[in-house]
């Protein structure tokens, strides 16, 4: 009998996952928690833990690391709505044993738990690169969102490495106009220097085309 623990803050997911585990022969639900704190308070040692990547009071991967320290033999499968490569790499790098999308077929979820229990690595659909960034989360906090098209046009040229005079010439503006707009831009971005603004622009994907 494989003892399974599930942690997810979403009540419908938690109840669905619990019911699913209980319905499977060979699996036994030993604990269900909604937060990282509840999960850490559990004393029954499970064989497999299914953890949400994002918990209200912390990060699923951190929780997993803590649980593994407590129970070195524990196998952990990360379950998430968010299929991005970074999260996959981070979980596997932290020693987790699998990565699965929540909207996978329920049978696949069960199969993954069995696979993890056997000690093999689980990479579900999505984590293998099929959906990835497309299944996006809330929009990432775009540092450049505060800027309008007029600002972006100038920042784009600055990122390309042009000096103020050339930016002005390219846009048919007076250098003074460009300097004024750049200083307004620094205020909008909340940075102190042009270089910081340029770094933000580069991070925001400007100057690539």
């Amino acid at each position, binding site marked *: 009998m494989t003892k399974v623990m599930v942690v997810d803050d*979403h*009540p*419908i*997911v*938690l*109840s*669905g*996952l619990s*019911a*699913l585990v*209980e*319905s*499977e022969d060979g699996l036994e639900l030993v604990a269900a928690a909604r937060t990282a704190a509840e999960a850490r308070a559990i004393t029954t040692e499970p064989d497999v833990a299914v953890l949400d990547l994002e918990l209200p009071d912390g990060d699923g991967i951190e929780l997993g690391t803590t649980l593994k320290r407590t129970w070195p033999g524990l196998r952990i499968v990360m379950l998430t*709505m968010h299929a991005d490569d970074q999260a996959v790499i981070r979980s596997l790098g932290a020693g987790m044993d699998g990565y699965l999308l*929540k*909207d996978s*077929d*329920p*049978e696949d*979820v069960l199969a993954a738990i069995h696979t993890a229990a056997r000690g093999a690595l689980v990479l579900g659909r999505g984590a293998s*690169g*099929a*959906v*990835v*960034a*497309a*299944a*996006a*989360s*809330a*929009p*990432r906090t*775009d540092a450049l*969102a505060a800027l*309008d*098209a*007029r600002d*972006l*046009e100038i920042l784009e040229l600055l990122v390309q490495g042009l000096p103020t*005079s050339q930016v*002005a010439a390219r*846009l*048919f*503006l*007076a*250098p*003074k*106009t460009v300097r*004024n707009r750049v200083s307004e831009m620094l205020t909008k971005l909340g940075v102190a220097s042009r270089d910081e603004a340029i770094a933000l622009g580069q991070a925001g*994907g400007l100057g*690539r*085309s």
Partner: protein
Amino acid sequence: MGVVVAAVATGFGALPLLAGFAGSSVSTGALYGAGWPAFGVAAALLLDRGTEPRVGWALAALALVPAAMVVIALPTAGDTVWSRVEDLWRAADVVVVLLTLVLLAWAMGYAPGRTQRRRLFWLLVWSAVVVGTVVVADSTLDARAEAVVLTLGMWSLAGLVTRLTIASEFRPVDEPLVDVVAVALILAIGAAVGVVVRLAGTRAGIPAPVPTAAFAAVMSTALAWPAAAWWRRSWLARRYGTGTLTPADVASITADLHHLTDPRELLAKAAEMVAASSGHPEVTLVLGMDSPDVPPGWVDHPLLVGGDRVGTLLLNPDDPEGPEPRQARLVEQLLPTVALVCRAVGLAVEAEHARQDVARERDAERARILGDLHDGLGPVLAGMSMRVQAELRRSPTPLLESLAPELAEARGDLRRIVSGLTPLALHDSDLAGALERLIATFDGDGRQVELEIAVEHPLPREVTVAVYRSVAEGITNALRHGRASHVAVRVATTVAGHVAVDVRDDGVGGPIAPGVGLTSLQQRAEQLGGSLAVRPHDEGGVLLHVQLPTKGAA
């Protein structure tokens, strides 16, 4: 007061001439003084206008020269006073003329600057002509003829000095020189033709070779005139601008206007037009109310529309003393038009920025909504699916049997809606990679989706997103409404600077009613300057064709 003095001086200067009349003829000694009263008239004119009184007074003094000559000659003369005056003039005329010119040069003075320099130049040129003529006349002609030459010389000098003093600007000195060269050229042509006709005519023994030659010379001069005028005009236009825009200029400048993607490029065109018509080698236009940095030697004109500054026109006159007055006047005339162009371009740029802002906001809003949808609905569907599956295993009922696949389909739909419509899929990746991943979400379950991609260069971001959405919408429609089992997607850039998207399916085809997705895509394509068409394919199924220009706000 000055005018009175000038009139008195003129009177005194003219006295010897009046006194020299003997019957119907005038004595030669008196005739020598006939030119000088002209200076008195010029002095009256200048002193009346009040321009440069020093020149006026000098001219008034020059009017007295004949009287002075008579006074100098008188003590040594008896009753032969006019022959004594004549001898004095004959001996001293060159010196007197030289002293006159020195006095005039001193009176006109020299101050640095283009106008002063050109004025002195013309005075010197004409002085040289007058002195040369007088010297030649002195040594070759008899006294009476010399007196006439001197008179004509003084009248022309008085006229020139008046003109030089009154004029506020002068043409560049090379312009009249070009005129001289042009005239000399056609005269030389006429003379050469005349000589040739004369020689040939004499040899051939035609009657009246001389009138024939003269006629030929006049005719060839007349025929050469337009050519010389054309040469003069084109030479000066190269140097100082045409002063107007020829249709050829306009045609060559506006030839490639329809390739413009940035309205600001119109400013470069407007600057070219100003440069071509005014003869400035470099002209720059700047938008906005701020003063640009003016390079040394350049001239700047603020551009105003309705009292608001909309831009600045910068000119490099290629002459440290600024543009020629004629060029400056032309630029003044062009300023209102150029200001309107600036205003129009400024508005176009603002409109373009507003459009981009709206598009960005819409993208962000869409991403936010889709994110909420995914994060809110996704876990609910996932949890319900697991719950239903668990119940189904425990106690299967027909309801649960049908619910499980429907939930699975709903999960797939949600995944596709989110992945197909959010541009965030493209955030960190190239178009090809994003499309491959997109297609992988559709592929399988007995359906086959093929992708062929031939994109030569990176596309502008807006175009990339539009291509991605077109493919997503095309496949969704093919599978959902067309019940297709095979979808072929082709994305390729064309030589003509477009990217074409074709999504072809083998579905049921038939009439296509564009839904929200297609309509929004069509609007997007048109905003980007492209087109979208959906039509039944000849061999069955439906073909979605989208074409977008790849040039743009890249």
